């Protein structure tokens, strides 16, 4: 495993209304990797994400960024929020401005960059997310998928090292989801670490380098996808199912159709194994 860019050590957090958020959670996010966090609703994924960005402070334990323990003073937090970008599930929660252009300029301006630099970043972020033609449009007239892209661009314009996505494919049509995933692929190619919460086990299995499974505020499993998703009873405990490709592969392997220990990631890879 490469060096950890983000890590939590024994963090616990409870909400004021008594809801348990996190319970003694320790995990590490390796630099440059694609990490998926799975778990049922209320498992604490979103709470964890708010800790990564310093918005919530753990009651016990500590959060580390690039090996440094996060202290909660203004300077450190500003620096942390510059490096760790958070993309919320509902873009309407994130977009505060009626103008796409203004929305995108907000983050970089908070970093204290010059206007010329900010402008350059805004244009660049619009270009990579494919929303340049939306520049003139008000955010309230955009479709859900377009809003999602604007929300992503708004974080990208800050050039973070880590981007945290809370269910990026939720409520998107299959094509929109596919586009977002291949876009994430581009981001990792540029060395950005990505952490994603999702309920989609097939996506997690296909896409992730590393998987964490959370339940009731704590980690119950972790490892590379082909290992984690073999544990059927554990998955059932958190009401998850095995990825379809993996399940089929295991069945076929038991029947001697395919060779063991090859773990296809996609349907195509599985079909290829069957053919051989």
């Amino acid at each position, binding site marked *: 495993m490469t060096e950890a860019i983000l890590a939590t050590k024994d963090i616990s957090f409870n909400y004021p209304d008594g809801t348990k958020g996190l319970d003694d959670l320790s995990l590490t996010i390796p630099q440059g990797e694609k990490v998926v966090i799975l778990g049922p609703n209320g498992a604490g994924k979103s709470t964890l994400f*708010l800790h990564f*960005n310093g*918005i919530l402070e753990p009651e016990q334990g500590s959060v580390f960024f690039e090996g440094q323990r996060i202290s909660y003073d*203004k300077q450190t937090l*500003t620096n942390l*929020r*510059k490096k760790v*970008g*958070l993309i*919320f599930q509902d873009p*309407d*929660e*994130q*977009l*505060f*401005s*009626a*103008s796409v*252009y*203004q*929305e995108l*300029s*907000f*983050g970089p*301006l*908070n*970093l204290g960059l010059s*206007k010329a630099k*900010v*402008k350059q970043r*805004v244009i660049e972020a619009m270009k990579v997310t494919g929303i340049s033609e939306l520049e*003139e*449009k*008000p*955010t*309230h*007239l955009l479709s859900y998928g377009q809003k999602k892209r604007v929300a992503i661009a*708004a*974080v990208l314009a*800050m050039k973070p090292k880590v981007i945290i996505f809370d269910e990026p494919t939720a409520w998107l049509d299959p094509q929109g989801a596919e586009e977002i995933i291949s876009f994430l692929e581009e981001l990792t190619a540029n060395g950005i670490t990505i952490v994603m919460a999702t309920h989609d086990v097939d996506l997690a299995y296909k896409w992730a380098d590393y998987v964490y499974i959370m339940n009731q505020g704590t980690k119950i499993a972790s490892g590379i996808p082909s290992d984690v998703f073999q544990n059927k009873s554990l998955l059932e405990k958190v009401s998850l199912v095995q990825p379809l490709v993996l399940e089929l592969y295991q069945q076929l392997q038991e029947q001697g159709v395919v060779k063991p220990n090859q773990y296809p990631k996609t349907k195509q890879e599985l079909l290829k194994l069957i053919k051989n």
Partner: protein
Amino acid sequence: MLIVDQYAYSNQLSSVHPVEKMIFSLTTLLIALISNSIIVSVVVIFVMSGLLVLKAKIPKLVFLKLLLVPLSFIIMGLIPIIISVTTSKHDFIVQMSYWGLTLGISSANLITAVELLFRTTASVCCLYFLALTTPMIEINSMLRKLKIPAVFIEFMNLVYRLLFILLDTAHQIKVAQLSRGGYSSIKNTFTSLAYLGSNLLVKAYYRAKKLSLALKARGYKGKIEVLERDHHLSKRNLSIIAVTEIVLVIFSILVEVV
């Protein structure tokens, strides 16, 4: 006024510099207000509605409907000016007397009312010109350039954005209620509406809280700073505006003198 908002973004004059539109609309408004002549008001009404319908391509019917909204208020306001109630005798054009009180319309008041009607309609047309051709975002950025305190502008910006979220939320709640039999009788219309009202407030509050979280995540430190888009003033447009305004001023002076 969501229709106004949509046309503000989609009209054919939306790419024209907001300052040009603002100067044009506000100076014309000033002339319309200062001038006492009905002819000037009529000219302003024609110029503004002509520009809106022919240049900005706002559909005629939409514009007429929009005009009816303030017009109904104006006409209501004119009634007390037209009709006088006195106990003494006057030279009214039309009059009715009851128990010593005389209700009547005098020619002087009628003229004042008609003048007022035209003048206010002209003013409304000027403001509609600005509202229908200039998106709120750009009006906001102009205010910023005019050095209006940042607090007001941030406030306007957020209110504008949140207004749509609020309307959206209200719509979602209403659809959810309708699909489960809400608003089916007079009685449950009231209860449904009460639920909508009270829950909208709670939801709006949580929305606002979440928004502030999202702002914090991007480094919000108490001040919302955003970048304005660059606009270039067109000399051609500015000269056309200047000529139009000068002609209007000369015209209104001539009407006054003659």
